[in-house]
């Protein structure tokens, strides 16, 4: 895996660079930003996140399980208390709800990890500690013959540093 990494000070220059790179079809672009910015989303024009599916499925499973465990156990071990019906679904809503939240939340996090490729074990190529501080970064993964062009685009748009990594 090889490519060009550009470091930017200003937001707008980074955004312009992205636009330019996409027009130049330079290669696959990864943007590093200290904080999420809508400008990048617009510039990169990615689709919506798929995490929502995990959330939905997890929530449904949780609710079902919550009700099921309560009702099944009541029927399995039928003890009369206070003259109340053996499976009383009304109070069991508590379990349906709580377990829905639990499983739903956990599956959301799981989904996040899955689609965001976390945890990531090595981060050698194409990263710079400055990105967690103040600077923006653009990592263009491209074949060697394209690197010159990419470098040029990045510098034109005011990258404070451009380096090739592999």
């Amino acid at each position, binding site marked *: 895996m090889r490519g060009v990494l550009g470091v930017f000070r200003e937001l*707008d220059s980074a955004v312009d660079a992205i636009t330019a790179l996409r027009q130049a079809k330079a290669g696959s672009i990864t*943007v590093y930003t200290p904080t999420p*910015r809508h400008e990048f989303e617009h510039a990169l024009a990615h689709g919506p996140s798929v*995490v929502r599916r995990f959330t939905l499925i997890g929530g449904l499973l949780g609710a079902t399980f919550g009700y099921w465990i309560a009702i099944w156990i009541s029927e*399995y071990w039928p003890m009369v208390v206070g003259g109340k019906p053996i499976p009383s679904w009304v109070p069991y809503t508590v*379990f349906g709800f*709580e377990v829905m939240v639990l499983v739903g939340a956990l599956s*959301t996090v799981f989904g996040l990890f899955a689609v965001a490729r976390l945890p990531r074990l090595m981060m050698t190529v194409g990263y710079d*500690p400055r990105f967690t501080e103040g600077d923006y970064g653009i990592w263009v993964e491209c074949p060697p013959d394209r690197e010159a062009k990419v470098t040029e685009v990045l510098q034109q748009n005011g990258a404070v540093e451009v380096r090739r990594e592999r």
Partner: protein
Amino acid sequence: MATVARPAEEMPRPNIPSANIQLPAVRSYQQVNDEIIATLTPTGAWFIGLGIAITCLLIGIGTWIYQIYMGLGVAGYNPPVMWGVYIITFVFWIGIGHAGTLISAILYLFRAGFRTTIYRCAEAMTVFAVMTAGLFPILHLGRPWKFFWLIPYPHWRFIWPNFKSPLVWDVFAILTYLTVSTTFLFVGLVPDIAALRDRETNPVRKRIYSILSLGWRNSDREWRHFTRAYLFLAAFSTPLVLSVHSVVSFDFAMALVPGWHATIFPPYFVAGAIFSGLGMVFTIIIPLRRWFGLRHYVTINHLDAAAKLCLFTSLVVGLAYMTEFWVAWFSGNKVEQEYFLNRVFGQWWWAAWIMLTCNMILPLTLFSQRLRRNTTWLFILSLFINLGMWFERFVIVVPSLSHEYEPWQWTTYAPTWVDWSILLGSFGWFSMWFLLFIKQFPVIAIAEVKEIIPPRLRTHTATTDIDAAGQHVDYSPETPGEHD
């Protein structure tokens, strides 16, 4: 926002929409990292504080061992007052937790800007408060070593808990709450841990941070899914926080004890919980912003906005108190009426009036903006709120049980040193975790603060879509009245 820029004397205390609070004194992302990560270096005062906390904790542990060996009789229980300080403190700590989730989740959904700089602190408070609260139902058991019987685990004889019991609802609600709020806190921490990792020099800590940061790189893909996942977590936490304290209130509302058996309890408890939690937030954040020199992050405007929320919940709680009396009168149930008379004008008048004064009367001062923006007063008031909310639970638990249907069994109740030192221990436990937290992780969300300070641009005449906080802020020297 123009008003901020105006000279102080014209409008000394701008009344700022809570969604719109800026950090004029924070100029660059770099500054955020520098200032916030600087707070992580331990100080002597911190070690002393930690020492005190651990001492209190040890006192509590020792007392608990004594209680387990001897039996619960060493505590002040006075049948039929079968629940006492432990349950009171349980509800107290659970309540504390709620403000954290409210601020981090509900206000996040409402896009309330003032949450940004205080939510990390509040959320950590939540997790540790729930960790503390979770101990008390076990502490107050007659046979604490059997507590796991309340959990539906596969048993070789297939013995299961009673799902009709509010206490089992508690188990589910609290465990869920603990798990979800911990997850929420951790997920929010990941980008900041990455920031710590990148500037850490000590190899050991760097290693730990690298592991905790899960290799986070601030890449656009990560951020895209992260923001979405965070939104969903918030969306889950919001009903969760409401449900948890409702379930806790069921412990009382489901019983036929006069003073407990009331349909108003769930909303009443939730409001009370958030109220008490905000009190604790003030108690923690006001000293913290001073010691950590973060007054230009957690500004007076933030406290002002939070104080408004606090005032609102206080009014809700007050309404609930009044409603209880009205219901008692309107029900025509003599038992209920006698109980409430005994609560307010009889045996327990002092507890009831501490509660009413601290939770209903004193917070009314927050109608004055001058006091809302006076950190000293906010801090004192927050202490009163903590006290008052502890006594609210006292008034709910003890007077009801001591004055029930059966006059022959009317009694009184007085905690012993055992109850008190276990209460002390719980504060030690909570503070220990919190102190450890604030020196390992940033108490202010680095990445999120960066959202509200405008990014560095080539020109200040950028197109409008290059803006986070909704508009530009022209940086003038520190405006008076903003962060003193």
